């Protein structure tokens, strides 16, 4: 492992078990997020990558296991304590999740108006700085419905850094974006992490973009961490899971077929009443 165990992780997840109904999503997951680094959580669709972010932010509670944020166990936090903790976290939702009844400016200003008593003139300056960082200062008066998908995500990014968080979580930032927007987002994520000294977590299955900026990668599959390491370690990782995912092979430990009875027997209706 390249990471120095001497520094305390920002987020430490230990033995996380989580299920939805009968479906087990996590079966004992351990993840450490180190400060100042970009950590990527990767894996095929449906492995619960987004759920992992929701657990980190306390939007969901695990069935068992411990989650420490800044060294504190958030298990018994009240909603008010969670809200306080979340002010130091920014999260970019896959859909952007902008408030549709507010303009771009008001979306970014929302948290500042809600949690501070700053005068409106100062809020204006702060909002324009955040919007400038994502290149959308000129779009401040537009409504979310007037934005393209990529602009939507950049405004959401500006909103999630409005309170200057220490940790920022990206949920599938590259999914469904055109190459130009993808390039912009990759650049922005790296830039924000380095200039604001943030801790970044990216959930994604876009290997190239993520491997380009990540410092450390966790690969999830079947509710477990099946491989982890730096991008170069992962490229050369010989384990079947890493091999399949990193090189995009259709069949492997993650089967092409959803579990089904034997093909021949199914077609011939053998065993049916």
């Amino acid at each position: 492992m390249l990471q120095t165990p001497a520094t305390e992780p920002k987020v430490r997840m230990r033995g996380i078990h989580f299920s939805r109904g009968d479906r087990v999503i996590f079966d004992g997951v351990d993840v450490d997020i180190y400060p100042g680094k970009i950590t990527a959580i990767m894996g095929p669709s449906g492995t619960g990558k987004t759920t992992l972010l929701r657990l980190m932010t306390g939007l969901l509670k695990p069935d068992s296991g411990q989650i420490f944020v800044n060294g504190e166990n958030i298990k018994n936090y009240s909603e008010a304590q969670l809200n306080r903790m979340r002010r130091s976290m920014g999260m970019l939702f896959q859909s952007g999740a902008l408030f549709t009844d507010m303009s771009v400016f008001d979306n970014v200003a929302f948290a500042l108006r809600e949690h501070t008593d700053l005068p409106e003139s100062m809020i204006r300056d702060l909002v324009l700085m955040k919007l400038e960082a994502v290149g959308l200062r000129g779009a401040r008066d537009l409504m979310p419905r007037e934005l393209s998908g990529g602009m939507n995500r950049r405004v959401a990014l500006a909103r999630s850094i409005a309170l200057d968080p220490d940790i920022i979580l990206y949920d599938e930032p590259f999914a469904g974006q055109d190459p130009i927007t993808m390039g912009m987002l990759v650049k922005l994520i790296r830039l924000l992490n380095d200039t604001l000294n943030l801790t970044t977590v990216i959930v994604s299955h876009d290997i190239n973009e993520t491997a380009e900026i990540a410092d450390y990668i966790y690969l999830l599959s079947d509710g477990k961490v099946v491989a982890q390491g730096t991008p170069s370690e992962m490229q050369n990782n010989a384990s079947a899971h890493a091999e399949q995912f990193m090189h995009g092979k259709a069949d492997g430990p993650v089967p092409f077929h959803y579990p089904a009875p034997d093909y021949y027997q199914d077609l011939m209706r053998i065993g049916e009443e």
Partner: protein
Amino acid sequence: MNFFGAIGQSILKFLQALGFASLFLFQALFTKPRLKSFHLLLKQFYVVGVLSLPIIIFASFFVGMVLALQGYTVMVKFGAESALGQLIALSLVRELGPVLGGLLFAGRACSALTAEIALLKTTEQLDSLRLLGVDPIHRIIAPRLWAGFICLPMLVIIFNAVAIYGGYWVSVDWLGIDSGSFWSSMQSSVNYREDIINGVIKSIVFALAVTWIAVYQGYVAMPTSEGIGYATTRTVVYSSLVILALDFILTAVMFTGLK
């Protein structure tokens, strides 16, 4: 055995939902009021109350006119048509105002509340509020709940007034009943405490029940487009049934002792 198990399970499920809904109501009703969020309440007064006015006024005017026509055809047989004012006023303030007003409100305002909240949930706007450190129960639910709770009783009072005017118009201007006897029969028979206050109490109870159902159904809706549809339907069905059932209970408590 399975049958009893299933019954027990659904009762447990119901109690759990009821407990959660009660906590939810409590948190939303007793939110610490902040001057900063007063504009949210004002906006909801407009959306829930003012925008419901046209349908309430239109419906109530016709209800009043129909009451006058129907009452007249029966009462004229006994030569009692001069008591038409009494019939119209009593049936409105005691029953039709709160019940019809509540049903219209459930269809017009509550369905919209549920759909809006469920859509906010589906588009992850409730979660992004949480992540910005704002409790959606305070920010989204509380103003809507309070607006519905305050607006419906006022809408019911307007409903009653407009319906009485509609009845007056048909009785006096069309059917030729003496305007003085229309008003005086109403004045002598409608009791302020027993009729008007009881009617207003009914509307307050209905207001709390239907707005509670609306915001709760929106909040727990499945975050899919199908889920929004189900939740909206459930709001309209449950709140209509609850209004009718509560009306029976309240009438039994309030009016059975009256002579």
